[in-house]
């Protein structure tokens, strides 16, 4: 047990920047006169980008196998944690860029939104560093409580309220499982392998699987997700779908991949891998089948994100079972998934207006004729979500499934087959939107939300999705 060392703070710079910027933005909001909140958004973007840059610098300074234990073992700093921190911070910056246009258009000028978003992002970075069950708990809560607030910020909107209440109740319920599982795992604190009574420990592992099942919206713990995604304002949905899901996966990466992984624990002593693979198979399949029937775009993307969560669970199971490349495959998947999701939602925000949000598939008919650039960006993002070849989504799925086949004895081969079949199915509902945009006539003119920042994010995400697909080598080297 080491003590506190001031040098540790240097390794926590990405976290500290986000947390301090969050508090500053909350303060600034309180003293800010006037109704235009784009200055707060600017401050948020600057803070989040500073955090991204500092994480990238730290990634480049650390060696591949370098690990620093911080704050007496509560946090750990290695390349993986900074790559994840950069993903979270960059996603936050993108969300802050696309929010002001939506706020102006739909009239919810809450400035505290930005501060809460930064604080929530700081929770995610804490998860990326977590090496103790206590920090996992704190990170999950910091992340989630912020997002409950963001979901319910439109207080007069009945749908927003309902989404927030459902999200909050399910999230808090999951917290209960997380904590009780954590407390039972402390049973094995001293002698991990030789516990004479593993009953409580196994129960603890199962409870953690349930808790994170809620957090990443895995079937059968997913029922809150479509409602929360539909009822929340679109930028918040983007943040939930991209950053929050990535945060939960980062926590699982630390917990199941590193701390509870290995030769004996996953199937033997702890037995968390068996429920996890079943949940992964159910999640991929059910998410896709439900998405096929959706007419509302946000609900469709919610089910699609559930299904993507299932694919990530496959990677996590592979990591726990000792696949050497699974960790970098998961991180690459998270990068591709976050970029694609933010891109898709920025197009949704662009196309919708206060009078018509244009969330149904038929509302998108003929978009390509009127706004070809937006239609092209959406097409690129949807193809990436479906895992079609020239995009980042394809390589992400490819590397992740490849890592899963490397598990000893081919234990996860059946999951890979399920995953590949489901990717083929998923192309059907993504292409429905594409065909509506390109091959059908518009029945009324579009009145998109005009905003330079929004167009910038849209273009940047679409370009990055293609770049991730054409030159994945650079990104893979970055993550390991």
């Amino acid at each position, binding site marked *: 047990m080491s003590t506190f060392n001031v040098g540790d703070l240097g390794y926590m710079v990405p976290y500290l920047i986000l947390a301090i910027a969050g508090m500053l933005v909350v303060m600034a909001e309180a003293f800010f006169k006037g109704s235009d909140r784009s200055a707060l958004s600017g401050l948020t973007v600057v803070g989040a980008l500073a955090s991204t840059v500092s994480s990238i610098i730290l990634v480049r300074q650390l060696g591949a196998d370098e690990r620093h234990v911080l704050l007496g073992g509560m946090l750990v700093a290695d390349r993986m944690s900074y790559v994840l921190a950069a993903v979270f911070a960059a996603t936050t910056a993108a969300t802050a860029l696309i929010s002001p246009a939506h706020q102006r258009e739909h009239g919810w000028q809450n400035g505290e939104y930005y501060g809460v978003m930064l604080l929530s992002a700081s929770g995610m970075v804490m998860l990326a560093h977590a090496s103790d069950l206590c920090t996992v*708990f704190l990170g999950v809560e910091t992340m989630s409580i912020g997002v409950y*607030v963001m979901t319910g910020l439109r207080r007069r909107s009945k749908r927003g309220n309902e989404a*927030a*209440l459902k999200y909050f109740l399910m999230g808090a319920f999951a917290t*209960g499982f997380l*904590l009780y599982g954590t407390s039972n795992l*402390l049973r094995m604190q001293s002698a991990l392998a030789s516990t004479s009574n593993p009953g409580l420990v196994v129960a603890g592992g199962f409870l953690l699987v349930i808790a994170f099942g809620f957090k990443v919206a895995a079937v059968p713990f997913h029922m809150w997700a479509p409602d929360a995604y539909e009822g929340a304002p679109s930028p918040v949905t983007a943040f939930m779908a991209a950053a929050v899901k990535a945060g939960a996966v980062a926590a699982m990466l630390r917990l199941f991949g590193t701390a509870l992984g290995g030769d004996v624990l996953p199937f033997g002593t702890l037995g968390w891998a068996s429920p996890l693979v079943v949940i992964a198979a159910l999640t991929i399949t059910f998410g896709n089948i439900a998405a096929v029937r959706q007419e509302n775009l946000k609900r469709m993307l919610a089910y699609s994100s559930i299904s993507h969560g299932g694919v990530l669970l496959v990677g996590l199971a592979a990591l726990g079972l000792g696949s050497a490349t699974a960790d970098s495959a998961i991180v690459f998947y998270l990068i591709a998934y976050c970029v694609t999701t933010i891109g898709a939602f920025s197009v949704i925000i662009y196309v919708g207006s206060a009078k018509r949000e244009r969330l149904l598939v038929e509302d998108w008919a003929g978009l390509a004729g009127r706004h070809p650039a937006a239609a092209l960006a959406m097409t690129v993002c949807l193809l990436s979500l479906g895992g079609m070849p020239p995009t980042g989504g394809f390589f992400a799925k490819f590397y992740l499934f490849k890592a899963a086949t490397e598990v000893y004895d081919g234990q996860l081969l059946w999951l890979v087959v399920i995953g590949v079949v489901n990717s083929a199915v998923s192309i059907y509902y993504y292409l429905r939107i594409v065909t509506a945009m390109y091959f059908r006539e518009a029945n009324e003119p579009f009145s998109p939300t005009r905003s330079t920042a929004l167009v910038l994010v849209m273009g940047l995400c679409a370009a990055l999705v293609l770049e991730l697909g054409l030159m994945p080598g650079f990104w893979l080297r970055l993550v390991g």
Partner: protein
Amino acid sequence: MLNDVFFNVGYGHFLVLAGMLFVIGVAGVVVRRNALIMMMSIELMLNAANMTLLTFSRMWGNGSGHAFALIVIAVAAAEAAVGLAIVVAVFRGRRHIDVDRLNTLRS
């Protein structure tokens, strides 16, 4: 046997009590449909976890579990503050907080 169960109170008793509290909490969330009662049941679950933490902390003779329990109490307070605000907002719009009757969002 009887003596062990009723008079020699040891660590096991606390763990069993915590387990019972947890089960009551889960049952409360699953069965009750009033948002406030569900929040109370969730608090019960968190307190079950706290009791387990304290028991193990005592068992291993280190203080980290105590610190963890204090952190849990603080975080639970923050969560309850946000949750109650959401419940109030829902009640203002609809004059009820029955989660089964919240069906504006299509499911």
